[in-house]
């Protein structure tokens, strides 16, 4: 637990028309972390993801990505700071091939006229809103399009690099044989993996996975767990996983946050969380507890299935 803090949420909350969907949410992800976010249906897990990635703007609290405050920034800006995600209900670009799905995410960092750092520096100095920086950005973009239209040698080289990287990611996720297949034609499990490959294409430092194992069978889940760990080490990521399957979460996560009705009810190592009566209550309801006299169902994490 010594890596730098990549993602930090402090007392984050949001209301939809008076309804508190999330309240007082705290989170910290460091490089090398693998944390879990669990909770019953409607607990606010996906809302938390949407807040962290900028889909919603928090009404309370503060979110920092790699040290920068990101409240109110657009999702794509937050993504560029090093935060990527997958979606609970797979949102691939269905008509695009597997390769193109990843290539969309492999955005080139080369900027033709002004460097990204220079623009960021200008923005910082002008506290976010700098017309000069915006103009530079726009000029960059338009020139970049002209490079594509004129098919300059430099641009061709960049395209080749993007393709190479995308193919590499497909290989890491075991999808190289699906390279030219349309995403919608892939089997379910492969679609999930493709989503992860796509997220990795944006060169994230933190990766948020929204129910990556949903709809998979036990064997596939096991494979996935191994893969997730492997990804963390290979790409030096910080990881946050939403999962419905307690077994899975308990198996791989080093720390778990439990949400219920938008409130964090428990937080800590898997063993501690599992014992927490509030968690049991949230998951199983009062009647269950009453009937069983506060008995905590003993569950052991599934043994790790061997790598494929």
């Amino acid at each position, binding site marked *: 637990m010594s890596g730098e803090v990549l993602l930090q949420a402090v007392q984050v909350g949001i209301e939809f028309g008076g309804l508190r969907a999330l309240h007082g949410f705290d989170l910290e992800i460091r490089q090398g972390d693998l944390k879990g976010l669990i909770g019953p249906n409607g607990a606010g897990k996906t809302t938390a993801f949407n807040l962290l990635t900028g889909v919603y703007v928090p009404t309370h609290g503060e979110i920092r990505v790699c040290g920068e405050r990101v409240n109110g920034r657009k999702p794509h800006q937050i*993504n560029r700071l090093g935060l990527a995600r997958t979606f609970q209900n797979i949102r691939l670009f*269905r008509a695009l091939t597997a390769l193109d799905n990843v290539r*969309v995410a492999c955005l*080139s960092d080369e900027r033709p006229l002004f460097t990204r750092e220079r623009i960021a520096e200008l923005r910082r100095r002008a506290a976010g809103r700098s017309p000069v920086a915006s103009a530079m950005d726009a000029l960059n973009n338009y020139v970049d399009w002209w490079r*594509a239209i004129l*098919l300059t040698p430099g641009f061709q*080289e960049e*395209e080749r690099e993007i393709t190479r990287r995308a193919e590499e990611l497909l290989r890491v996720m075991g999808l190289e044989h699906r390279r030219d297949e349309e995403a919608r034609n892939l089997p379910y499990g492969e679609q999930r993996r493709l989503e992860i490959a796509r997220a990795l294409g944006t060169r994230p430092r933190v990766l948020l996975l929204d129910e990556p194992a949903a709809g998979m069978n036990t064997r596939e889940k096991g494979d996935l767990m191994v893969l997730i760990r492997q990804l963390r080490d290979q790409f030096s990521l910080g990881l946050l996983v939403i999962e419905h399957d307690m077994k899975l979460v308990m198996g791989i996560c080093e720390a778990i946050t439990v949400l219920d009705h938008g409130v964090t009810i428990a937080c800590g190592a898997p063993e501690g969380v599992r014992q927490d009566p509030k968690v049991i209550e949230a998951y199983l309801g009062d009647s269950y507890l009453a009937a069983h006299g506060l008995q905590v169902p003993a569950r052991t994490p599934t043994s790790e299935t061997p790598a494929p």
Partner: protein
Amino acid sequence: MPAWLRGIMPVVIAIAVLVVLQLLLGDLPFFVYLASIVGVNVILAVSLNIVNGMTGQFSIGHAGFMAVGAYTAGKLSLLIKDVAIAGLPGAVSDQVQFVGTLLAGGIAAAVCGFIVGLPSLRLRGDYLAIVTLGFGEIIRVVVQNLDTFGRALGLSGIPQTSSLFAVWFCVFLVVLVARRIVGSTHGRSLWAIREDEVAAEAMGVDTTSYKVRAFVISSFFAGVAGGLFAHFVPIINPGSFTFVKSIEVVVMVVLGGLGSTTGAIVAAIVLTLLPEALRSLFIQLGGLGAGASLAQKVDQIRMPIYGMLLVILMLVRPQGLFGTREIWDMMPRWIPRPRRVT
């Protein structure tokens, strides 16, 4: 082929081919006129396809941008009609001025595209439809109110400096631009927006700015098409750039297949020539009496037919003739295909 040559090779080839065509066919007035009309419609369809097809937005005000280009280029040409560039032969000077006015028309349309696109592209797709439609109306009212634009009578006496070469070179350019965008990382981002805006945004694609940029490029070419139009039709007036014209272009794009450049080209050619051909055919067959009245019916039923075409297409084949594919994807395997960009 060396990398630097790949960029400009098609341009060289296109110029050579078009020069030959110009020399062979350039002085058949009727052919040139038809080819120019077809060319302008192809430019409109291919450029609209960048927004409606590739990006998945829906603009129905393309004629408005065409009008901006036509009036800007036409007015400029009228202003500098009597001026020649020193040191150049008259014809060359005319052509330089012509190219200049076309660019001015395109840029004016692009600026309008930016102004219209920025607020509406932040919102959901159907708002763009309404706002672009409204924009077309506003342009019409502006033109009708300003004496410099000849009000209702329009502008006439614009030098007829357009040629087969000029129109089809612009056609070539818009196709080149569309194809190269599609094949590049930018094109993939546009497709991504079309497929799933939320996911595209989450993958670091600045969706609003991409949409606006696509819209600006599309408007630019609509403006160029307008500029060309102004230089081969004898008079431009607000009646040429109505809602009906916009819908005509939409029908071309939808029929060709939203997202297919070659589809848009084929549909534009067919839909421009078909009424023309039917009209001539009826007159050839039926003579003046019955033939002419049948030919008249062709014009009359064109609009309702366009309407029904849209409905039937959406029900039976919503992807249009080609879907998002290009014509070579549908040809037999043994015909060599254009190489992918990467």
